């Protein structure tokens, strides 16, 4: 369809790369689009001319896909890979049981943080992709994510150590035992006993109101919820529904001119459209090398693109020299094919983006091209087309939605505040009706990913006021943990219906003072309002506002304020 005329071709060159990047890539998996988009680019290099061509191309691709499935299956049988080395839910629960025991030993907090950090990083990486289907298993995954976030509440800071006494240590041991047993029985007929055990633990908890009590009850409630969900019949998943709420939420987040996905998708679409048009208008052979090179030169960040725009011409130029020297010495078609296969094998051994990687790909491409045209012509065209591609990508990177790492960092910091605001919206909705756990879990996962990304950027780059900024990040994390605890209290109906209106007003007032920029004018009044509420809610909200006040001291360090 793309080869019928230039308008259709351009439309496809805009739509296909845009949709692929928008749906497959994220800031944390920036090259998620690459394999699919490269397939599209390859297919556009061999547009079918006749119906027979179309059928042969389709059949050859199908055949190779089945061959690929077979080879991967054999490879995994030989290497004993199981699909994904991810931890199962029982394994995560067992791990949490051991981490709860570490909470009782303040001297082992470094070990606790390290072990929990490993668990969080692994689990955050498993966040569901763009269009999640709601099934029993996805619901359980969401609950595990929430469970981990609730656990992080205890690692955010150690002020609760002053509450640690014999009774609370005993409670934590009971919690650890409960988690270990649940790990054994979840998904089995005995899980009913665990549900009863959960209720017994909640009814018999006598430690006073405080962080340890809130933490223990929130963990038990979430595990109880998981046990009820695990009881559901998975055959009901045959009527799998698309998680429309989650999908619309994802689309809304991505559809902003500041979002990573939008910027990369737009840049790639423009690059492919322009290079496609230029390639169409140039009346010379092999002009498809222009969009192909442009695609390879365009990278998720401007800095990476600039790097490739230096290394690719160097490698291509050297590759042309090698080809010029070697090709005339190759005696016939079999030798030429053998040489091109050796070159492409060396290309697969090289790291993409380095200066030597294009040497081999250039030799392969030129050897193939030289079978149908004079070698020197192919070399001149190769270099010329590469330079045109470099110009196109340079212009788009410079003038159209450029993505520098510093801009991305500012956007990420802003996003952390935006997530706070969104979570407050969810909590407000939760006061009136049951909220979709998948959306709050997605926000939790997103927050942690952006948080880790910001911290890495601060540590690896020369950022002004880096120490103060890092402290501000940690305060934001504490606040987010407190937010999650508030959500838990709302979900278990800790709020009386007579208090709902007051809490709503309180939340609206807090949101006004925190987003889009922090102001502290109303904090004293807000703290007085909280004093009137239930002790558990008051405890957590007070903690949140105290941290928000602390954050005000770091205003000068926060980039977008």
């Amino acid at each position, binding site marked *: 369809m793309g080869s019928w005329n230039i308008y259709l071709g351009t439309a496809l060159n805009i739509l296909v790369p845009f949709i692929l990047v928008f749906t497959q890539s994220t800031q944390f998996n920036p090259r998620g689009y690459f*394999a699919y988009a490269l397939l599209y680019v390859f297919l556009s290099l061999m547009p079918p001319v006749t119906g027979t061509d179309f059928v*042969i191309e389709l*059949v*050859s691709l199908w055949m190779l*896909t*089945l061959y690929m*499935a077979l080879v991967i299956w054999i490879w995994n049988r030989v290497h004993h890979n199981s699909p994904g080395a991810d931890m199962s839910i029982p394994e995560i629960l067992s791990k949490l049981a051991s981490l709860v025991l570490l909470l009782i030993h303040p001297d082992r907090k470094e070990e606790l943080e390290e072990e929990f950090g490993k668990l969080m990083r692994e689990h955050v990486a498993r966040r569901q992709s763009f269009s999640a289907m709601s099934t029993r298993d996805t619901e359980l995954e969401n609950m595990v994510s929430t469970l981990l976030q609730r656990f992080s509440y205890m690692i955010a800071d150690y002020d609760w150590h002053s509450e640690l006494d014999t009774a609370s240590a005993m409670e934590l041991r009971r919690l650890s035992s409960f988690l270990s047993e649940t790990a054994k029985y979840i998904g089995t007929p005995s899980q009913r006993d665990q549900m009863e055990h959960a209720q017994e633990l909640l009814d018999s908890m006598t430690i006073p109101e405080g962080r340890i009590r809130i933490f223990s009850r929130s963990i038990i409630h979430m595990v109880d919820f998981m046990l009820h969900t695990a009881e559901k019949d998975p055959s009901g998943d045959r009527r799998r529904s698309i998680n429309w709420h989650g999908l619309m939420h994802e689309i809304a987040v991505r559809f902003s001119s500041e979002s990573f996905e939008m910027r990369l998708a737009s840049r790639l679409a423009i690059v492919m459209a322009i290079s496609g048009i230029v390639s169409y208008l140039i009346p010379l052979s092999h002009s498809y090398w222009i969009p192909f090179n442009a695609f390879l030169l365009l990278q998720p960040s401007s800095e990476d693109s600039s790097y490739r725009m230096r290394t690719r011409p160097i490698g291509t130029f050297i590759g042309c020299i090698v080809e010029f020297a070697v090709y005339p010495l190759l005696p016939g078609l079999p030798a030429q094919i053998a040489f091109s*296969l050796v070159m492409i094998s060396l290309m*697969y051994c090289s790291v993409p983006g380095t200066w030597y990687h294009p040497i081999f790909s250039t030799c392969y491409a030129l050897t193939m091209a030289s*079978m149908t045209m004079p070698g020197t012509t192919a070399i001149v065209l190769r270099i010329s087309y590469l330079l045109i591609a470099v110009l196109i990508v340079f212009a788009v990177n410079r003038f159209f939605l450029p993505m520098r790492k510093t801009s991305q960092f500012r956007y990420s910091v802003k996003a952390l505040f935006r997530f706070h605001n969104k979570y407050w919206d969810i909590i407000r909705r939760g006061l009136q009706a049951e909220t979709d756990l998948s959306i709050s879990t997605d926000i939790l996962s997103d927050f942690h990913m952006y948080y880790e990304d910001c911290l890495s950027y601060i540590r690896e780059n020369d950022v002004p006021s880096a120490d103060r900024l890092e402290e501000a990040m940690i305060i934001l994390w504490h606040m987010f943990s407190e937010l999650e605890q508030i959500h838990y209290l709302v979900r278990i109906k800790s709020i009386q219906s007579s208090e709902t209106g007051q809490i709503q007003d309180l939340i609206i007032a807090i949101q006004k003072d925190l987003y889009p920029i922090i102001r502290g004018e109303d904090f004293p009044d807000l703290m007085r309002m909280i004093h009137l509420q239930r002790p558990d809610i008051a405890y957590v909200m007070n903690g949140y506002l105290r941290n928000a006040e602390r954050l005000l001291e770091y205003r000068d360090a926060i980039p977008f304020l």
Partner: protein
Amino acid sequence: MGADLDICFIEKRFAEWMHRFLAAFRRAMPVIFFFITSYFLILLLFGLQYTIAASAITVFFSSRYRRGAGSVLGYLILIFP
């Protein structure tokens, strides 16, 4: 003596480079094997002008083969998008 030292240095650098190259070659062998066998499959069945399909599918192979076998449905989705 200086020349001997230079030759030793060059030999040492060459040995290090060779070691890194062989390690990279071993890592890339599954992808190279897949590409070459796909290439010849297409060359023999359909002809030289369609061998670019081998490059296209090899991109998928290189990003997926370590991830696990996956499901039949996953591969069917690739075939029938």
